[in-house]
């Protein structure tokens, strides 16, 4: 039997985890029939708890036929500052792809990267340069003398490599991805054949 505080807690948890406005009816669907009345009362207490107060940063707002917890709009300058201050830097999928192409095809030019990715990549290349994951290693002696891109020392640090030659060949990756029982059993046996096959035979100390 669920007790009163538990139901109130559950209402708050659901409201918190749902980022979209939730109608009262839908919110109450998380509860059994016999709990529902209690849950409806709990919901009103939770809403009250999230009423605007000077020292509270989040409020419950009623919008689009539903309820949701949101940050107080007047505090948004702080949020903006917080998110702009960066924090954990992220690598987009485009950047990761570009990085991978440079890593495996270096030295490589922007048009060559573009050819492989199928989209212009100069913006991404610039970002990777700024993040010091790539470096310019010179210019290719062809028409237009495009820059040649290589990976940097920072890149090696990021991926725990001593040398770009340590980059695993794609086949190794594929092997890893397709390793199934059979392969694994086989590879397992190989280095182990040194074990005397005849247990009754001579054994070294």
């Amino acid at each position, binding site marked *: 039997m669920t007790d009163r505080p538990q139901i109130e807690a559950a209402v708050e948890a659901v409201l918190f985890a749902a980022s979209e406005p939730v109608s009262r009816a839908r919110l109450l669907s998380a509860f059994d029939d016999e709990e529902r009345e209690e849950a409806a009362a709990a919901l009103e207490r939770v809403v009250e708890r999230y009423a605007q107060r000077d020292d509270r940063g989040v409020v419950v707002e009623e919008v689009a036929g539903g309820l949701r917890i949101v940050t107080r709009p007047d505090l948004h300058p702080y949020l903006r500052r917080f998110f702009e201050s960066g924090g954990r830097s992220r690598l987009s999928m485009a950047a990761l792809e570009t990085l991978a192409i440079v890593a495996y095809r270096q030295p490589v030019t922007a048009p060559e990267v573009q050819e492989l990715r199928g989209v212009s990549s100069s913006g991404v290349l610039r970002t990777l340069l700024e993040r010091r994951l790539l470096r310019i290693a010179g210019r290719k002696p062809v028409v237009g003398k495009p820059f040649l891109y290589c990976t940097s020392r920072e890149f090696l640090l990021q991926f725990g490599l001593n040398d770009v030659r340590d980059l695993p060949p*794609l086949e190794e990756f594929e092997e890893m991805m397709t390793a199934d029982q059979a392969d694994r059993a086989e590879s397992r046996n190989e280095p182990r054949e040194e074990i005397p*096959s005849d247990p009754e035979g001579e054994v070294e100390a």
Partner: protein
Amino acid sequence: MRSGASPKGRAGGLLPDAWRIQLPVFEGPLDLLLHLVRVNEVEITEIPVVLICDQFHDYLALMEELDLDIAADYVYEAAQLIFIKSRMLLPRPRRGAEESEDPRENLVQRLLEYQQIKDAAQSMAEIHELRRGIWVRPPEKVEEEEEEEESLDLGDVSLFDLLGAFRKVLDRYDREHPPPLVLEGEEYSVRGQFQRILESLDGDRPLDLLQDLRGRSCRAEAVSAFLAVLELARLRLVRLHQTGEGELLLYRTERELRIEELEAIES
């Protein structure tokens, strides 16, 4: 239905017949060994190798009987056990003052380590199960930013991601650049395109050049078609007209093609 070949005998009932029906749930040979240690009520450090070895082999025999795939890992451990057992049975050399090494030492060490790992895994399972109940909020967008792109935390990005990304690039490239269909060279020749375009211009309807070029199967064919149009224009067989929308329309002129003109075109 199978009968006989009961593996009991040596195991002395320690391997319940139930095993014959129930699939083993051991995580591996070490897990099985730990189980045998437990049911024999002995300390890992005092493992009775001869007994355990026999029980282990009985178990493998049972698996075989049930047509279960015996993983190489089990076979390997079985060989190890026989190896240790044989050494246990050999008279210990008493030469010198130094005690001869216990042949079980390595196995005991591994079992102790594995026991620790299992215990840790067990606790971790409980923690994970409890924390599975934790829900977080999706990150809030302060302002309506442009469609958030999928991204990874730089601190978390590893070789696995790099390789995965490269694989994806290559796969996509292959998909978008299927190996060109093997067509007869003629299809790509300027003369071939020349004839094709000329034929398609029979009648009063103009040909939308850009659309036609876009319809070519590959760049080489498009280039040939374009060169063919230049030839057609040079021989005044067509008239080019640009519309307000930027379309390039080809109109057939009255002029007839002479055979030697056609033959002069690169094939």
